[in-house]
């Protein structure tokens, strides 16, 4: 039942005081014909409705959430407390006397530079894809500023996140997809062939979407740079190397981070995120404005010399910045580095426990995540990656990412993150192994699963064919 179906004419939860001035009536020619159809409910009905809905959602606080490439780590409560401070929530973006907010943004930028090995950061982009778009515009502006107008192609591996090619297209580039080698790494030969005087950039995430660290990274950087292109780091997978190995030292020129993944800001059911972009000096003058600068302990906004413009009305998702700031300040250098290590340890442990049951595509040692294939299981039993994932829901865990990366058939991608205990990982491994046995013995049972969730499997074809998009 929706909130509209709970409505009754005349009810309201509106807490407003009475108007204390004379009513002003606008010229009727500007007014809408009928009132907007909005719910009419009392406050308790409202509370019960949305409390019930919240119970039909699953967050990190509810259970294990090994969603690959999404870094569903615990979101510390101190982050929320910090972001709820009146000195942050009740300041207008265009007001004066905001030195505390500016200083926070400045320090966060410096800390992100230290972690990534970059020279400058913008905190304006609202999400990872937004950061990609921003960085690609900077790359475009860089080449154009050198009168190098023929660089209109962006190269990305076929294992890349879908946002990579989509952002490149939005930034006005053509996309060249290159295949990965059989072990899931960037194919150096294919890259050599693809680069040329039309190459604007190569987009890469390292570790890649199979959770493998590409040890050829310096060679890759050389190939791209020799061709006159720039190397772009998709920061979605930074977690297992944060503070240990830096994109800047690997040869990357520009990076976007996901503060809602790596730096523990909550995902909010799909946002708001934050996707800061950091760059080496050669790109700094193209950063979007405003950026924050410091002068003798005084902080202010400024506009880089050849800025690409703004990508958001104000300065970014400020409260998300506060959460990431709290995380970094609480943990500090050792805490950040150790968290990275424990994320790799957890992924390798879970992988080791599942290895004998599924072919694994992430080499002997993975980083933050690993990918298994259910292809064999499906051939033998008819139970697919999807079936297995749905069955996990009945066991109280969130399924891993399904069918990604596209280069592995029947893929399940696990990213446990560092905040999970050995007991949680053992429990998850036991569940998956048990399901594996069940698939061999009783494959038919899977097609009905999940059985204990608020709904069974939804008819997605019907949803797309006969779209009902509002109530």
């Amino acid at each position: 039942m929706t909130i509209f179906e709970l409505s009754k004419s005349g009810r309201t939860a509106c807490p407003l005081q009475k108007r204390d001035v004379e009513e002003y009536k606008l010229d009727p020619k500007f007014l809408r014909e009928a009132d907007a159809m909005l719910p009419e409910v009392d406050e308790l009905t409202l509370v019960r409705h949305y409390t019930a809905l919240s119970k039909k959602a699953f967050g990190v606080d509810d259970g294990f959430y090994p969603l690959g490439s999404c870094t569903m780590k615990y979101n510390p409560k101190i982050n929320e407390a910090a972001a709820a401070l009146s000195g942050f929530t009740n300041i207008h973006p265009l007001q004066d006397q905001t030195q505390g907010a500016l200083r926070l943004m400045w320090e966060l930028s410096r800390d992100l530079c230290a972690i990534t090995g970059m020279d400058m950061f913008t905190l304006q982009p609202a999400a990872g894809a937004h950061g990609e778009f921003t960085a690609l515009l900077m790359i475009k502006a860089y080449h154009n500023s050198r009168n190098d107008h023929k660089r209109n192609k962006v190269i990305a591996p076929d294992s890349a996140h879908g946002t990579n090619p989509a952002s490149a297209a939005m930034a006005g580039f053509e996309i060249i997809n290159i295949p990965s080698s059989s072990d899931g790494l960037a194919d150096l030969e294919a890259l050599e062939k693809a680069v040329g005087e039309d190459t604007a950039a190569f987009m890469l995430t390292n570790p890649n979407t199979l959770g493998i660290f590409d040890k050829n990274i310096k060679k890759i950087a050389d190939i791209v740079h020799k061709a006159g292109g720039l190397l772009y780091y998709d920061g979605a997978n930074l977690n297992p190397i944060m503070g240990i190995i830096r994109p800047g030292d690997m040869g990357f020129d520009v990076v976007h981070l996901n503060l809602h993944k790596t730096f523990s800001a909550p995902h909010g059911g799909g946002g708001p995120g934050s996707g800061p972009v950091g760059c080496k000096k050669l790109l700094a003058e193209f950063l979007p404005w405003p950026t924050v600068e410091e002068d003798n302990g005084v902080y202010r906004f400024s506009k880089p010399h050849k800025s690409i413009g703004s990508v958001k009305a104000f300065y970014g998702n400020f409260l998300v910045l506060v959460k990431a700031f709290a995380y970094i300040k609480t943990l500090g250098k050792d805490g950040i580095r150790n968290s990275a290590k424990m994320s790799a340890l957890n992924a390798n442990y879970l992988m080791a426990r599942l290895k004998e049951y599924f072919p694994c595509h992430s080499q002997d040692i993975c980083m933050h995540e690993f990918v298994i294939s259910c292809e064999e299981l499906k051939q033998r039993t008819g139970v697919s990656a999807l079936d297995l994932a749905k069955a996990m829901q009945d066991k109280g865990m969130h399924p891993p990412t399904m069918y990604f990366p596209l280069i592995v058939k029947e893929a399940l991608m696990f990213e446990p993150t560092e905040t999970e205990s050995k007991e949680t990982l053992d429990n998850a491994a036991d569940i998956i192994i048990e399901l594996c046995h069940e698939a061999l013995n009783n494959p038919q049972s899977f097609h009905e699963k999940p059985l204990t969730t608020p709904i069974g499997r939804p008819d997605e074809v019907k949803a797309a064919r006969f779209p009902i998009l509002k109530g």
Partner: protein
Amino acid sequence: MAKYYPHTESDIKQMLSVIGIDSVDSLYAGLEELKAEDIDLAEGMGQQGCERYIDKLSKQNKVYSSIFLGAGAYNHYIPAVVRNLAGREEFLTAYTPYQPEISQGILQTIFEYQTMICNLCGMDLSNASVYDGATALAEGLLMLAEKGKNKVLFSEGINPKYLEVVKTYLRAQNVEIEYVGLDGSGKTSIEELKRKLDQNTFAVALAQPNFYGVIEDAQAVGEIVKQRGANYIMSCNPISLALLKTPDECGADVATGEGQPLGMPLSFGGPYLGFIAAKQKYMRKMVGRIVGKTTDSKGKEAYVLTLQAREQHIRREKASSSICSNQAHCALMATLYMAAMGKKGMKEVASQCVSKAHYLAKKMTALEGFELKYGGEFFNEFVIRSKISSDKIIAACREKDILAGLKLGENEILWCVTETNSVEDMDKLIEVLKEAM
């Protein structure tokens, strides 16, 4: 030392032995030469130390007791019930609802959000939200792009910060922006619009109310745009839509806007919420997530992410946009806000904004040397020209803990009034202005 991982030494030992290596550092074997020796990051403060430090930073920001500044970010009353329900961890700590069976709560709230936005705008469909009002306008314009046309007409009444963002987005697609100025009443000039609207124009963009608070004759603009066969996009303040003609009634194809007034605090500019709603024929061009209603295997009502063939994870470079996330938690706040205020309450907020803004404008213009810059009907913002300088007014206000409006020029200020400004606050502001004279 502060940490959020639970590993004990014996855990680590046992885990390493299952993996078959002897140390955690072995996980990084072969990467030694890439490792950063030291990084310029301070040691951790721990939770207690961090809380103290951040609290100190927050106090270095001035929280005004009385706010008359709007210009794209509005100080409205946020019911406690909105903050409370939005804080529920299931909503906050969940990912994008990829697994519908355990995400019905999030999917249904987005569906309700889409319904409310559609009803507010008179539109057929809405997405699950985008980053903010500025990017909503930019993405909305890109949705309307047509082959063989490369110009948009952009009203100068649109927030200049939105223009900055739109320029950034459209430049990448080689779309030209031409501007339509305002007439003496502060409305977008119909004459200039007619003159500039040519065969090469694929869209006309208008703000309602505009940046200077003036209510546009949006229906008249719509008629002209339709006559010439172009597309029409509006950027609206959602509170105003409780009273004003809907974008649909004005003939718009796409309605966008900044959702922050719907229950989100000012927060130094974000996170906010961009909404995009459109007529049915733009369904396949809509950007971002959309939730649809369907049934489950047993015929039970169910909600899912749908029409995903438009999106980046399927279409890659051919997607309608690269947007992946939305501002789901902000959309939740907007849903809670609209549900709490309800049909009557939303109208009441809008009407109080209008009445109070007119009260203040009347009091201000009664002062010697203060006049309204524009003659047009206004919503809750208005531009005042004064003999005394803007700087002097703003400084005088600051001294009395009042955040004055936005300085537009040496003697021009854009003032904003909402339902949060009491008659006492406004009378106090008038006294401050009198003293400043």
